[in-house]
């Protein structure tokens, strides 16, 4: 039975002419709110990017071999998705394929940085901000003034949404206006969005992103194996088996990752001479880089152990009883009945741990890596040291988001699938 969401007097459709007017008023309010946000937020951003595009060699960017290959692959992928009747995916892929070169061109056009400042300070941008604030105030007054009189739930929600969008537009618009008049946009853009100073750093940032992903993937995969092992020990009915696992888990969860990195590298590697250099074929990995991987595995193992322990304990006791009643040993029951179910349940928390680890790999900045091992953050920090310009940090943030946002999306998708009952257990 669903919880009744409707009150007895609630209707879906307006009936009298007066009610029809109220419903139209609500739609108008929502439109006002949307327009206000579009002006206050979208206006200045589009004007700045537009200035970049106008000054850029858009045709040249699209005509470059890399962009053409990108477009062919992207649009081909979109066509493939469309042919398999996945239209939303197809549209998203196609839009990404076209928009990335456009954005790249827009950024290229924002050199020198003063072009962005001028666009932001232009009259057009001022009008957009003022207009956004004015429309926002109108939406707030209209929505909050009349929402109580709306005859249908839908109209009521539209009126409220319009008013809230109005608030958001006013807040952003006023912030922009205050920044224009009281702040120092020139200095801000120079230090945070200086595309010119980043020119030619694409290669090192890409290398940084690859190193970040390598460190995180190695740490996570190793940590999952170690974590499952520790969880099984921590779940033993014998205290003498549990104790060492608990000590390990609590130690690695209880000390800072930066402390662990420092002790393992400066203490063990440099101090005691236990140098974990690794040669895989033609690739030579420095002691600092390998030590970082080992520490990430050890650390993630401790957190992973707690995730697995919770997952295994969440499996109904009847499952173990059923397996053992069939003559399986405790080990067989764990391996074939309990752990496979637990693994499905811990996928979302493990992915979350992975997202956290991706960001935590930035702590390798304390180790003094060789340039070829720089992660995203170290790359940015080195760039900043050389130029005293924080735009490198902005670029690093974009790099982290490119990696983490799809993962966060994957976590939510997996959770939704698990919740939708793909692997539900009848009770």
């Amino acid at each position: 039975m669903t919880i009744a969401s409707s009150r007895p007097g609630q209707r879906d459709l307006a009936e009298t002419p007066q009610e029809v007017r109220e419903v139209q008023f609500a739609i108008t309010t929502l439109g006002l709110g949307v327009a206000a946000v579009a002006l206050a937020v979208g206006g200045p951003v589009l004007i700045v990017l537009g200035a970049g595009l106008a000054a850029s060699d858009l045709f040249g960017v699209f005509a470059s071999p890399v962009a053409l290959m990108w477009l062919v692959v992207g649009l081909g992928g979109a066509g493939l998705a469309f042919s398999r009747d996945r239209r939303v995916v197809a549209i998203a892929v196609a839009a990404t394929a076209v928009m990335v070169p456009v954005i790249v061109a827009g950024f290229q056009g924002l050199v020198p940085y003063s072009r962005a400042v001028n666009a932001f300070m232009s009259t057009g941008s001022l009008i957009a901000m003022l207009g956004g604030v004015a429309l926002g105030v109108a939406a707030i007054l209209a929505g909050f003034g009349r929402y109580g009189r709306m005859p249908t739930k839908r109209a009521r929600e539209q009126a409220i949404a319009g008013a809230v969008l109005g608030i958001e537009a006013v807040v952003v618009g006023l912030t922009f206006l205050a920044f224009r008049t009281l702040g120092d946009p020139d200095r801000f853009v120079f230090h945070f969005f200086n595309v010119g100073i980043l020119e030619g750093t694409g290669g090192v940032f890409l290398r940084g992103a690859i190193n970040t992903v390598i460190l995180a993937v190695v740490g996570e995969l190793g940590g999952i194996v170690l974590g499952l092992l520790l969880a099984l020990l921590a779940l033993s009915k014998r205290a003498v088996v549990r104790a060492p696992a608990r000590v390990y888990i609590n130690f690695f969860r209880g000390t800072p990752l930066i402390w662990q990195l420092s002790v393992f590298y400066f203490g063990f590697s440099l101090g005691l001479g236990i140098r974990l250099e690794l040669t895989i074929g033609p690739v030579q990995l420095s002691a600092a880089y390998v030590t970082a991987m080992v520490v990430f595995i050890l650390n993630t193992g401790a957190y992973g152990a707690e995730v697995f322990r919770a997952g295994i304990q969440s499996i109904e006791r009847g499952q173990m009883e059923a397996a053992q009643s069939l003559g399986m040993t405790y080990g067989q029951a764990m391996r074939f009945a309990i752990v496979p179910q637990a693994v499905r349940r811990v996928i979302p928390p493990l992915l979350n741990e992975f997202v956290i680890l991706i960001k935590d790999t930035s702590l390798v900045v304390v180790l003094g890596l060789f340039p070829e091992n720089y992660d995203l953050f170290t790359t940015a920090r080195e760039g900043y040291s050389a130029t005293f310009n924080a735009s490198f940090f902005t670029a690093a943030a974009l790099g982290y988001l490119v990696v983490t946002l799809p993962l966060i999306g994957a976590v939510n998708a997996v959770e939704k699938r698990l919740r939708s009952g793909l692997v539900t257990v009848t009770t």
Partner: protein
Amino acid sequence: MSAPLVRLEGVHKWFGDLHVLKGIDLGVEPKEVVVVIGPSGSGKSTLLRTINLLEEPTAGRVFFEDTELTDVRTNLNRVRAHLGIVFQAFNLFPHKTALQNITMALDKVLGLDDEEARRRATQELDHVGVAHKADAYPGQLSGGQQQRVAIARALAMRPKVMLFDEVTSALDPELIQEVLDVMKRLADEGMTMVVVTHEMGFARTVGTRLLFLDEGRILADGQPRDIFHNPDNERIQQFFSRIL
């Protein structure tokens, strides 16, 4: 009379301060269908679960044939393969199909090869009337179908005794009969069974022996007919007057 398959001697069970079983002595002969009834909280399920040592007795001894299960030197896993049990909550493995639920133990415990395990699993599914659902996951089956798969899973081990722990209590009323029918057929085929149930019709018609349990003690032990028609104990009379 042949030797009992299952024997309990002076079994006591404490859960903390709660004295659930207060000295149970019981022998189950081959081909007997022992039905255990009694008010809730009387220790019926605990008694049943003590037979395959899912509950370890606090005191007393449990035997299967000549093996003492309460002896720590006994390999419980080996003995349990001969003691099938079916639970109220089915406890099928939700990540395995009906067929795989059955073949898992055939493979891992009995060491049958794939083909033999599949053959035996299909045969048992057919036996309980759900062969057409072999490739369905438990979540795609009705309660009655799940419980019949669970029975097939236990039977595939070729147990010498089958234990049933309130197997119809979690089922919708219209699904109960299909499970009871399977159990009745098993009894007719000569399976030794111990059945904890609230189904009095089943107790009367299928049971060859009835135990009435109350507050951890066996109050009556005899022919179902006699106990139903002439309950000589006041507690038993009271129980019947409430449920019949």
